[in-house]
């Protein structure tokens, strides 16, 4: 068994970095280090001396890593981007997921590929989680709007809760709008007229 690979994760999103780290640990990698983007990224990387660097494609710091293969004396070991020009699928999968990998010179492809695969799947897992979180958040906000609008209707028309709700639903159906949109209009109108 070859020695543990040191993996550096450069990501300013702490949640995604945590998800990725967890995935790498689950795959048996014990030496995973997270680096938040800082002004001295290169020094941090030099100190860690990683075998593999995983970086978010949205990070401007990708250009900082680019100098590692050009200025060889700035790092102890030469680093190259993990691209296999024959493996288009791999490149596309990484770009689609939004992640990129750099590896030290001479590291075997079969040792790096599973790491990039994990990164790709974890980046997707994070994107899914983010969508779900946003959906949940907007649902909660819509619910709050509806509650406020309902209270306004109850007060204005002197009707009980169920009737106010039914009225709003009817308007929404007739006008082919979402209930939350109707609620927003009611609140806006109340603010204008109140």
């Amino acid at each position, binding site marked *: 068994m070859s020695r543990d690979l040191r993996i550096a994760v450069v990501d300013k999103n702490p949640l995604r970095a945590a998800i990725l780290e967890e995935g790498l640990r689950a795959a048996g990698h014990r030496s995973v280090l997270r680096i938040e983007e800082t*002004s*001295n990224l*290169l020094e941090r990387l030099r100190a860690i001396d990683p075998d593999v660097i995983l970086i978010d*494609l*949205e*990070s*401007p*710091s*990708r*250009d*900082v*890593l*680019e*100098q590692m*293969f*050009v*200025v060889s*004396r700035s790092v102890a070991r030469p680093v*190259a*981007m993990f*691209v296999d*020009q024959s493996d*288009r699928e791999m*490149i*596309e999968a990484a*770009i689609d997921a939004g992640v*990129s990998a750099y590896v030290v010179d001479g590291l075997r492809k079969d040792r790096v590929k599973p790491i990039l695969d994990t990164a790709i799947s974890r980046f997707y897992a994070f994107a899914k989680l983010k969508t779900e979180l946003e959906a949940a958040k907007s649902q909660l906000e819509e619910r709050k709007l509806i509650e406020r609008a309902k209270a306004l209707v109850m007060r204005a028309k002197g009707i009980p809760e169920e009737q106010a709700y039914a009225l709003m639903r009817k308007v929404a159906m007739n006008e082919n709008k979402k209930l939350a949109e109707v609620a927003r209009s009611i609140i806006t109108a109340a603010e204008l007229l109140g």
Partner: protein
Amino acid sequence: MRKSLRIGYVPLTDAALLHIAKGQGFAAARGLDLELVPEPSWANIRDKLAAGYFDAAHMLAPAAIAVSLGLAQVKAELVAPVALGLNGNAITVSKALYEAIAQQTGEVPAGPQATSQALKRIAAKRRGAGEPPLTFGHVFPFSTHHYQLRLWLRSGQIDIGEDVRLVVVPPPYMVDTLRKGSLDGFCVGAPWNSLAASAGAGVILHQGLEIVRDCPEKVLAFRAGWAHAHAEEVHAIGDAIGEAARWAGERANRGSVAALLSEAAGPGVTPATIEPVLAGGRGAGAGLRLDEAAIKADPAHALWLYAQMAAAGQCVFSETLAQAAAAVYAPGLGPQITAPSAIPIAFEPPQFSPSDVHGYFAALRSK
């Protein structure tokens, strides 16, 4: 028939002609729908153009050459039928370094040779005191910003590595890094120099054109195979860029150009920050040229850039590679431009001549 083109760009003022070609309808008039996609890094631009995610990209001219020569990780044969402008960079230094340089030169403002020699003395003093070398930032290993710094430092016989370290810093982080003291200076494009100055983090020491007049900057790059297979679209976008350049060159449009540029550069950049960047103002401007003569993809520019790359030790010098570099600039695929193109002129010898690139390279190395 309408065709759509997906073009990657980095939000900088010199992506302007793309925004003008789209915003003023010059591309649409030629049947092209432009989808302009902002990217945070030059590495992304390179990867996504090479992998076919983009049809074309706003690219650092030397990066397009490096990718074609196989010097920049991903190897792909690229062509640049049209350039997107000339000049626009500047060298900014921290307030402390500015004062130290001014003390040395005894006059403000001093020319680049005087400031470079002053910097050499400052660096020597620091070395004597056991302090770390000065650190200057630029934007990418294959960038004119990098080469402009080198040409300036060369004048004072500054040792890159011993006296001054050069590092890549993403432009959005430049100002903050300078303020924190991790950088002593940088060479970057607009709007970042004006932003550093207005934030009080640094002082603009030299406009790019004080170092190199009519310096090549960005090009519109395509994969060569794609460009040849889609010559009609390539010509159409080239013509749209040509019209955008004529439009930008008209004095009456200067205000609109500044507004468009500030929009292109992203939030927090006002037209007032941009206006001084445009060419025309004597001395004050960074001389970003967007006029028709400035977009000619002159292979001489590629030769000049290749010589800078070789002088920086990024590749060996050979006539074969020089010809390969020159071939990246493909004016035959671009718009017809009758105006003569400008040859980059540095502030001190050696002067470049496209007919003797090797001689120029050799002279650059000998100091």
